[in-house]
């Protein structure tokens, strides 16, 4: 069968896929909205217990990584493969930084007895329990997406190195970049909802 390459088709498919990802998170956002409406005071109290500095640091990290990934696409299109690879490496490093940061944040919370199903959470008012339930569900799902995104970018980088993704055939890198922007975008919603609500 002849090999055909449909750049616009690939893009369309990716946008549709991103849409499904947004809807996947959408279910959780709906739950968030419903419970915020029901327990505004408890959500406020829950938000106070999250570390704004750590959250803000992660926001900066992700926004920076969105920039590096965008720059890597430009670099490839200009034919500067080495620069593209460095920028991709930086993006993946930032992603790992995000996860490490998240790890410390979660372990600190665990240390205070705040983890899904814990005794401590059971004793809190129901709204706060739900706040943390949503916190773990949503940031957990988002963290999983960071991991998937970083893997995708690593694979793409390997293909750039092997000359399979090139100046003339950069669709895969562009789509991986789009995915990464989505990961960033979701976080930009999560950050105020959890950290700044107090």
């Amino acid at each position, binding site marked *: 069968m002849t090999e055909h390459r449909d750049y616009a088709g690939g893009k*369309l498919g990716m946008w549709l896929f991103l849409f499904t990802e947004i*809807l*996947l998170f959408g*279910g959780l956002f709906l739950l968030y909205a419903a419970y915020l409406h029901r327990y505004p005071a408890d959500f406020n109290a829950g938000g106070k217990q999250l570390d704004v500095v750590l959250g803000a640091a992660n926001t900066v990290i992700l926004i920076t990584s969105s920039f590096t990934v965008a720059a890597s696409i430009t670099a490839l299109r200009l034919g500067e493969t080495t620069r593209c690879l460095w920028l991709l490496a930086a993006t993946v490093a930032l992603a790992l930084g995000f996860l490490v940061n998240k790890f410390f944040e979660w372990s600190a919370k665990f240390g205070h007895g705040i983890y899904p199903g814990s005794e401590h959470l059971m004793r809190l008012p129901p709204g706060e329990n739900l706040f943390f339930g949503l916190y773990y*569900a949503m940031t957990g799902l988002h963290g999983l997406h960071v991991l998937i995104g970083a893997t995708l970018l690593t694979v793409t980088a390997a293909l750039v190195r092997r000359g399979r993704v090139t100046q003339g055939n950069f669709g895969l890198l562009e789509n991986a970049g789009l995915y990464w922007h989505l990961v960033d975008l979701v976080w930009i919603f999560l950050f105020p909802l959890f950290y700044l609500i107090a």
Partner: protein
Amino acid sequence: MDHGNVDGLGFLASAPGRGGLLSWIGSTDHKRIGLLYMGCIVFMFFCGSILGMILRLKLMTPGSTLVGPQTYNAMFTLHGVIMIFLVVIPSIPASLGNILLPLQIGAEDVSFPRLNLFSWWLYVLGAVLALVSIFTGTGAPDTGWTFYVPFSERTTTNVSMAVTAVTILGFSSILTGLNFVTTIHRLRAPGMTWTRLPLFVWSLYATAWIQVLATPILGITLALVFAERVLHLGLFDPGRGGDPLLYQHLFWIYSHPAVYIMVLPAMGVISDIIPVFARKNIFGYKMIAFSSLAIAFAGSLVWAHHMFTSGMSDTAVLVFSFLTFIVAIPSAIKVFNWVSTLYKGSISVDPPLLFSLGFIFMFSVGGLTGLVQGSAGTDIHVHDTYFIVGHFHYVIFGGTGLGLFAALHFWLPKIFGRMYDKTVAKLSFWIILAGMNLLYFPMFILGLEGLPRRYYDYLPKYAHGQMLSTVGSWILAVGLVMMFANLYRGIRRGPLAGDNPWGAATLEWTTSSPPPADNFATEPVVTRGPYDFRGVARRD
């Protein structure tokens, strides 16, 4: 045109050097993937039907017979899970849609062939997990196919694995939809304008959008059931501040649109078949195409009609009741257009047309009883009774099931190049139709008399109806076996069918039967509409 040696031709024959099983389960040819789906779906349909037969046998007489109550619960759960998620939802789009969509728009393949194969593998994984969930853990899931909380969070049976299976099946469905939308936008042959698309393609297009837009909600909802069971977040647990009603909302936001994933492709099939056997252009092409999109859109707004008795504000009940009635309009448009197409047509009563007429009849009964449930007042009386069981079997078995059978009888000669025995096909149709009606019609009466659904035992006053229904299930089973045996025999040994046995005008009939691996010898150029029969001849 007859091809002398049909088995040596087309995509069914293996390419030189690449034979055997691997050339199928590793193939990215949309036709082979479609057939893989079809094989799996038919197999799952047998599993689900056998469960259904046992349920019916248990219900034949009151009292504790045949199976215990816990087994009964597990069996209707698995019957539902298998039939809904493994049979009906993928039935037409994933099997026949995969085979026919590229052929009908003059493309070589779908946009993402490897993704297509991956979807099939996800389907297999989901199917295996669903079956394994019966035999592992501390017992087969017993929640019903809706996995309602809080019971699904608390029951010790193997619900976690079942919801994982369904989530995976959801992703398979999303990827198929995504592939179809892209294919329809990007790969139409020259001259294949939007108003020359066969109506089956239009229906797949509308279906694909629902698959893409609704299924992620199911994914996250069932993932949350899993999380609740493992991590006890409390999101749906009233003991921890959560609200089970929110689960019902999320579940039906997917599952109501899902009923249109089930029925829209069947409507597309009917719209393609009727003009061929009436030898007339379809009446109201644009209305039918548009009504598919209208159903997809309106159908996404009515989910809460499943929750009239769950405790919602009166305003919400009113709004959702009103919206539900709106969906009936585009469905009725289709029915009227089919009937108008038949009017004064020169009709040849072949098996595909018979099954299509069966579809129209059964779907109309199912649709009208849907309105009874869409009105909040009457729904309060019939909710969770056998009336519901009757309704959805009329729609999804009588509708989608017969639509699938119509499609099989219509396109089988194209796919395999051989014809089945038409007399046996017609006979099996009448037996199936009789069996279905005897099986499901008494349920309406039983429901109106107050027999609740999902109950293991019942009062003697319902015994009469239950008995009739069980007898119906045997008649139906006879018809099904007869039909499948006839189709199978046709595939193996039937007479050669030729490229265009029915004299249809859509693009797939212009290539050979079975089609070659690349679909068309030369890229087709489309110069006419899909139901323009001038100059197209029937074989007999």
